[in-house]
C-alpha cells in the first residue's frame, strides 16, 4: 500500500491518508481481507504521529471500509461493497463541490459544465482505450 503525504498541501494529514486508503480500495489495489500495516509500522514509514494513523483507521472502520480484529490488526472489511461505494462517492462529491464552486466563480452555467464533463469523459475514454491510462496524481 503506497501512501504519500504532503505537509505543504492544504489538506489535513488524516484526510490525505484516509483518502488514499479509500482510493486504493476503490481502485482495487486493496481488496477484502487484505491486512493493513500496523499503526506503529505505518507511523514509522510515514514519520507521522501514531495517534493520527489510529484516528484514520478508526474513522475508516466506522465507515465500514476497514475491520479491526482484536489483537490481530486492521483488515479491509470482508463485506466491502457498500463501504466501497460510499468511499467512492465521498471522494467524488468533494471534487464535484470544488468544480461547482470554480464554475460559479467563472460564471459557467450548470448546463455548460455538464457538457464539458461529457467531453472530458469522451477524451479520457479515448486515452484509456489507446492504453495510456490516466494517472492519478
Amino acid at each position: 500500500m503506497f501512501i504519500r503525504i504532503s505537509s505543504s498541501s492544504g489538506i489535513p494529514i488524516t484526510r490525505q491518508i484516509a483518502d488514499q486508503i479509500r482510493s486504493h480500495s476503490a481502485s482495487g489495489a486493496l481488496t477484502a481481507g487484505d491486512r493493513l500495516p500496523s499503526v506503529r509500522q505505518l507511523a514509522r514509514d510515514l514519520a507521522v504521529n501514531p495517534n493520527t494513523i489510529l484516528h484514520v483507521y478508526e474513522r475508516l472502520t466506522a465507515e465500514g471500509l476497514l475491520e479491526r480484529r482484536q489483537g490481530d490488526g486492521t483488515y479491509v472489511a470482508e463485506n466491502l461493497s457498500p463501504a466501497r461505494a460510499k468511499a467512492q462517492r465521498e471522494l467524488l462529491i468533494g471534487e464535484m463541490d470544488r468544480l461547482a464552486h470554480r464554475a460559479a466563480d467563472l460564471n459557467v452555467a450548470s448546463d455548460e459544465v455538464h457538457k464539458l464533463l461529457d467531453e472530458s469523459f469522451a477524451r479520457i475514454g479515448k486515452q484509456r482505450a489507446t492504453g495510456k491510462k490516466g494517472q492519478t496524481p
Partner: protein
Amino acid sequence: MSDKPVIELRGVQKAFGKNAVLRGLDLSVPAGQTFAFLGRNGAGKSTTIRMLLGLLRPDAGEVRVLGLDPQTHPLEVRRRVGYVAEDQVMFGWMRVGELLSFVAPFYPTWDAAWAKELSDRFELPLKTRVKNLSKGQGVRVALLLALAHRPKLVILDDPTLGLDPIMRKEFLRDLVTHLQDQRVSVFFSSHLLYEIEPVADSVVILDHGRIVRQAATEDLRAAVKRLIAPVESAGILAALPGLLDISRNGRQCTAVVEDITAARPALAAAGISPEELDLNLDEIFEAYVIGRRKEVRDAKSDLERVA
C-alpha cells in the same frame, strides 16, 4: 486519563529591562501528547523553555514541570526531563563513548542497556570525537542523551535547526519511533511548521508573549478556513466573528476566520456561501501572527466603503 499535565504555566510574565517578553502565559500540556510550540523568533519560545528548565525565574506567575517548580527543584526537574537544545554545546574533545559515560552518572534513572540500544540504532561512532561528528550525528547524540534516562517528558528546542531535509525526516521518524511509541510527552518548539504537523497532537501558537491559540492539530485544521467571495460581499466577510485576516484581490475578497462553524450563521443570514478553502499549518500560523489583525480593523472600514 487522570494523568496530571506535564507542563503547567499560569499567568507567567517575564521582562528583560523594559522589554516584556512574556505577558501572562497560560498553558497546560497533557501527558502523553506531542505538543508543538510555535512562534516567530522573539515571540518568547526560548524564554519559556528556559523557565521550564529552571534557568530563568518568572517575574510573576507559576511554572510547574511534572508537578515540580523548576525554581525550587531545578535538579529534580533536569533529572526527569530530556532536553535537546537548538545548538547543543557539548564537550567537543570527548569521544562519543566517553561523553555517554560522563553524562550517565548525573541521572539516577540512566538505562545503560537502552543507551546502548539507541547508539546502535543511531549508528553512532563511539570512538569519534564529538567535535568531528556531522550535524546529524550531533543531533542524534543529543537525542540519545535526552532519552537514555527514560524521561517522562522531552523538551526539544528547535532540534532540527541546521539539518538537511533527509536528516530532518530521520529525526522526526526517531521521534515517532522512540518517543510517541512509548507515550513519552514531547514539547517541541520549531519554526518549520509544515514539518511539525504530521507529528503534533496539539499546537500552541505564541505571539508577542501571549498564547493566541491552543488546539488539537486536527481541530485547528478543521476550524480555520479561508473564505473567498465576490468583492461585493466584503462588508459581510469583514464583520464575521473570529476574523483573522481579510484582503482584496481584484474582483474577489479573501478572509481567514478562526472558526468556520462560528462564522456560518452570519454567512447564512447574509445569504452568501463563499468558497471554503483548507489552510496548511504555515498559512494558519501566518494568519495568526503576521500582524494583520491590527490592520483588519482598518481594512474593515476600507472594505465597507467599497461594498
